[in-house]
């Protein structure tokens, strides 16, 4: 099993979620994060001092999938999160040693 973690732009979330549901992913977990990267920030002026804001709001999507589903899921995310502009974000893939569904105690791929 793999855990896919994607840091994406907020306004792509809805499409990503739909795409994932379409390919049969049944769950995901979302976190508000701030990203720092190649994407330039914007300037904000407060009290006469101008600051460049480099930490930009992003959303992190975590999806656990079975090994077979990995590629399909990755492309679903990539296609739907993409705008083609700097700051589209990144996808990270981790190995997942185990998954447990708390309600039933199921383990492994069953539990996803």
């Amino acid at each position, binding site marked *: 099993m793999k855990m896919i973690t994607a840091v994406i732009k907020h306004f792509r979330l809805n499409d990503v979620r739909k795409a994932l549901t379409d390919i049969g992913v049944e769950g995901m977990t979302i976190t508000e994060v701030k990203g720092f990267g190649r994407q330039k920030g914007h300037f*904000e*002026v*407060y*009290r*006469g*001092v*101008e*600051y460049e*804001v480099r930490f930009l709001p992003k959303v992190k999507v975590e999806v656990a999938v079975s090994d077979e589903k990995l590629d399909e899921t990755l492309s679903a995310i990539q296609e739907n999160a993409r705008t083609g502009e700097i700051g589209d974000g990144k996808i990270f893939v981790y190995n997942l040693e185990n998954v447990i569904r708390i309600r039933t105690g199921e383990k492994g791929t069953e539990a996803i």
Partner: protein
Amino acid sequence: MKKQNSELRSQNSDKKNIKNFSAVLFAFCFLLIALFSGSAFAGESSKIDTGDTAWILVSAALVMLMTPGLALFYGGMVRKKNVLGTLMQSFIAIAIISLQWIFIGYTLSFGPDISGIIGGLDWMLLNDVGVEPSSYAKTVPHLAFMIYQAMFAVITPALISGAFAERMKFSAYVIFILLWTTLVYDPVCHWIWGGGWMGKLGVVDFAGGLVVHVTSGISALAAALFIGKRKGYLEELLPPHNLPMTVLGAGLLWFGWFGFNAGSALSSGELSAMAFVTTHTGACAATVTWLIIEWIHRGMPTMFGAATGAIAGLATITPAAGFVSPSSALIIGIAAGGFCYLALNSKAKFGYDDTLDAFGVHGVGGIIGTIGAGLFASAAINGVNGFFFGNASQLFKQLMAIGVVAVYSFIISIVIFKIIDIVIGVRVCEECEENGLDIEQHGEAGYFL
């Protein structure tokens, strides 16, 4: 912090402390009542006008609301971790300064004049301040005038708190505002409004350009210089945590300011209407001016700029409100927007950290407005002519007054700060500053969102 906490806990168990404390409080109360009550509130006076009284009482309520308004205006601009500490600085001023006013401030300010310098102690604890009208406002109960003026005394030190926001000890703050009100506000108020030398000389200040804004603004500058910059100033983003709160505060301040300025007519009629109109005009002109300049200078007009510009306009028109015409108010408002914008945007260059621009807005605004009154006052409005109406001397009086009040406020403020700093320290420790005033000074958090 941890040690302090456990000390408290030991006091906690010792609940007797409180009981003793209550007992002492009560003894004190009975003394009080024995001494002062019942004497001053006797007669009925037929000269009281119901409309004027209604207007003064409403105005007093409006000015009272300004301090919570200021709390929100300032509170929204600090970082989240300091929001309660900042609100507290305004809120506590209401309670403490009102009591100071009742005990001693009112009589020092408005009590029977002693050589033009200060009021005598005759009216301590409102002795002889009753429901009959006073010479200050001939158609409203003396107590109504007293409480109306109390609200001015309350907001003035609270304004200063913008200069040292996010880094001052609460204990030091409490002592500071008590001393400052007694040593700066009360005398200056007496000089100008309480029958003192400046008033006699003909200096004019309709609703507190000198008494409120120059004193607090200049003291704010002194405070900012004395206490030093916040950690991270000009290096990190130290952003306002809740600008909508600031906008709400600005709205309440604007609303309350009608009581501040139009209420200063001390009656309901021609003059209050005029001051109401000039106040609104000044505020609007400053707001628009600020935004135009910001738009040109930075490329975008900001909500923060609009709110700050409005307050700058209101502060600036204050001394002139009941002396000038609406078109003069327009010009004063434009000047307010321009000069205060300049002050805010030069601050970084000078490098001092007047955190919420108490000097940049109230100091600069108070000065511009006091000069404005000297330039644009028209006898047709309220009996005094300014420079543009052929009376150059008024302008010089105003300038002299600004100089004296500014120097006096600055020096006394520094002295007060110095003394407090030696005795208990004015600034929180570095770690406290990092953790924020809310947790460190008040043991609370502003939000659990």
